[in-house]
């Protein structure tokens, strides 16, 4: 049975892949903007709803790791420029690298559902952010804020995962 996903046929990306990437990147940026408009204040900075990760997870499963990484980078760079600042960008980068690496590995193992992969991605994204902040502030106590962020990130990840799963099913 033929797998219905966009295959990157090596070398230059096909027009389909490029278009899909551009769409997902634009969507990710819009989600970032929405998150920016709805600031959540739980006493820790940098807590986000995590909607933009829907696009990253979608890219990972529909396109591939490379495409997911590029979309993530574009999204982070642009939203840091447009709605954030250098530091928010740096934290997000740390989180994204950790998150995407883990998600790619988990996906490759084939043992976990998309939802669980997305949940882990969200949780680790926040972990990367906390670790970056703790490192830059030279203070280990910052990690005390992680359990709360873990919860938010995981729940958002589960939500994203469910949405992605349902959408991808329709695309088949």
């Amino acid at each position, binding site marked *: 049975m033929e*797998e*219905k*996903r966009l295959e990157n046929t090596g070398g230059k990306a096909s027009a389909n892949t490029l278009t899909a990437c551009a769409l997902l990147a634009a969507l990710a940026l819009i989600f970032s903007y929405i998150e920016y408009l709805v600031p959540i*204040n739980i*006493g*820790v*900075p*940098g807590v986000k709803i995590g909607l933009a990760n829907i696009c990253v997870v979608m890219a990972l*499963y529909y396109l591939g790791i490379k495409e997911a990484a590029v979309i993530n980078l574009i999204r982070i760079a642009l939203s840091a420029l447009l709605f*954030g*600042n*250098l*530091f*928010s960008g740096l934290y997000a980068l740390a989180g994204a690298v950790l998150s995407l690496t883990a998600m790619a590995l*988990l996906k490759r193992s084939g*043992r*976990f*559902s*998309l*939802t*669980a992969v997305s*949940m*882990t991605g969200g*949780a680790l994204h926040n*972990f990367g952010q*906390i670790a970056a*902040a703790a490192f*830059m*502030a*030279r*203070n*280990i*106590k*910052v*990690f*005390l804020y*992680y*359990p709360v962020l*873990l*919860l938010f990130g*995981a729940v958002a990840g589960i939500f994203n995962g*469910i949405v992605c*799963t349902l959408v*991808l*099913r329709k695309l*088949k």
Partner: protein
Amino acid sequence: MKLPLFKKADILLVALLLVLGAACFAFAGGKSSENGNVAIVTVDGETVGTYLLTEGNYGGRVDTLYGSNWFLVENNTIKVVDADCPGKDCTQFHAISSPGQVIVCVPHHMTVSITGGDEDIPDAVVR
């Protein structure tokens, strides 16, 4: 490609994440439930100011190489209320009062933390 909503193995990930959360909490020294008396401000790891939380309500400013932060001491808690760093993330922290809680301004390499008993009060105290 099959796309199940959940799989049995997912529980493993949930468990791992729980462990990660608990480990962070322990790693960072946990949180005490008592209130502390003294707030310590450090920049680059060095103490630059200490403030008694029991002296009523007052505000102050911390100047660092990297910029300034304004704080407010009230009701035995301390909170950062303004700063000249780009994101002002430090103002989003809730007021803190127990040892173990911190407020951080990353661009300014600044941390505000609480210590409790008298034996911890350093030599110089700002009133």
